[in-house]
């Protein structure tokens, strides 16, 4: 279960709309409450490191960026609990590519941006055997 505040939903959606037609990406900072539940306290937008051509359907968070995100979180008593990215003109469902590049435990929030407006937002977790993603419930907290 992923707990997201209304402001987080808004931030992720508008980041996706802002970067359309490219993919946006960012970190979800918060706490693991009672595995498998986690609560997002802050979103942490990251600039998509992919080369221009691939940005329409790819995102990349470089390890340095992840490390600085982790450091930022640590200073606030938070942890990286997941990642978000957008699928421009594509459903909010993880792709095969997402699966091949995913890490266990983390929440993967995907926002679908259709013709410039965010239309759907869902969260996913990869099965520990890497076979597939399972949708996780989003609870709107505060």
């Amino acid at each position, binding site marked *: 279960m992923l707990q997201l505040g209304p402001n987080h939903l808004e931030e992720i959606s508008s980041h996706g709309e802002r970067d359309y037609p490219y*993919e946006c*990406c960012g970190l979800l900072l918060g706490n693991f409450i009672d595995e498998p539940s986690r609560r997002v306290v802050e979103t942490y937008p990251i600039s998509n490191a992919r080369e221009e*051509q*691939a940005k*329409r*359907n*790819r*995102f*990349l*968070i*470089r*390890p340095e960026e*992840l*490390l600085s995100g982790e450091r930022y979180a640590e200073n606030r008593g938070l*942890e*990286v609990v997941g*990642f978000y*990215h957008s*699928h*421009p*003109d*594509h459903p909010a469902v*993880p*792709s*095969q*590519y*997402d699966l091949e*590049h*995913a*890490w*266990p*435990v*983390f929440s*993967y929030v995907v926002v679908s941006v259709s013709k410039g407006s965010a239309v759907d937002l869902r969260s996913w977790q990869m099965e*520990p*055997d*890497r076979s597939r993603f399972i949708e996780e419930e989003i609870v709107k907290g505060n």
Partner: protein
Amino acid sequence: MSVTINIPTALRQFTGGSARVEIEAATVNEALAGLTTRHAELRRHLFNEKNQLRSFVNVYVNDEDIRYQVGSETELKDGDSLMIVPSIAGGSTATEILPSLSNDEIARYSRHLIMPEVGLAGQRRLKAASVLMIGTGGLGAPSGMYLAAAGVGRIGIVDFDVVESSNLQRQIIHGTADVGRPKIESARDRLRDINPHIEIETHDARLTSENAIRLFQNYDLIVDGTDNFPTRYLVNDACVLLGKPNVYGSIFRFEGQASVFWAEKGACYRCLYPEPPPPGLVPSCAEGGVLGVLPGIVGAIQANETIKLILGAEDTLINRLLLFDAWQMKFRELKLRKDPLCPMCGENPTIQELIDYEEFCGLRQVQEKPDANSLEEITATQLKQRLDEGRDLQLIDVREPSEYEIARIPGTKLIPLGQVVTRLNEIDPSRETVVHCKGGVRSAKAIEALKKAGYPGRLLNLRGGITAWSNDVDPNVPKY
């Protein structure tokens, strides 16, 4: 050596919650092997099915990425600290959903599928790929056939020519029954017969500055099988403008060249040859001949490199020019480097759109030259008539001895083009003289050279050369 491996949060569930694991190891490789032996569940997250470190797994030794050291062979000292850091990647499926293979296709491509370098994923990538072949001649024939056989999902072919019998010595995509048919139709039928699972798109057109961008846009890669400089520069420039790889091959007599010009990754054709050779210096295959097998070898190399580019292989011909001599049976290789001053792909490119390539290669002027010099011409029929009338005519053939052996007009004297000036005294200036070659171009050059050298007599050029003689006067003279 005892080292510490820091485990990222996401993976701690596989290490019983520990954030740090102590391991005895001398290299990064050993450390990761030790870690994944102790915690077997970790393995599938760090390594892929081929036992390679997953592309998004980064390993740092004392805060330094091992990619900037010697990778997994990086040596470790006592007390070193290793950190595993993911780079997080993902993306929508827009282009990445690869087409699946039917059972028929799996059976057909089984020799590819069982090699890890291709595998199921690679074969699906081939199916998802599109390649545009420029020309279905000597080079396009083998490369097109191998690409079709390999299962490249969509192949476009551009040609405007008609199959002639002199093509069949090397253009094995066409058969004897195809003589007289448009090449794209004959090529399409052959490729379809080789592989009915792929799409073939025909473009009945001469490639020009007007249509190149539109044609190239719809394909991932371009395979250059052209036989002339204007088109070669055009293909290069259009590829640079669109950021597409240009798989290059060229052939002449016994010598071939191959390379991959991809401006985003290395040199382009203009980095290698900034300017075309002066017109007429490099003869075409029609003038100079070509060993029929040679384009087979060079075209197959082009197909090989195309497939590797699609599969994402590393050791392609980018920044390498392969030279092949079929007569000596020798391969050589030159290293190429991107020219920072290249007008097309350099740091400050001056060419931003396609130009007039005929003009760039100086071809327009050549065609105008004979007229400007008021070249006197005679047709084959007129020549025959004058000979029949018993007029005193001197006939000079400026072709090569090997051509003379194939076909000749009775009563001619052979003086190859390269020797006309030095053997000028063998031509009698008091007699009217007709000069001929195969098609009329070399003889025009010979007349020009003779006039320049001060030859005082009257010289007539046989229009259309011995080919016209065969067409209009004597069909018993073979055409070659």
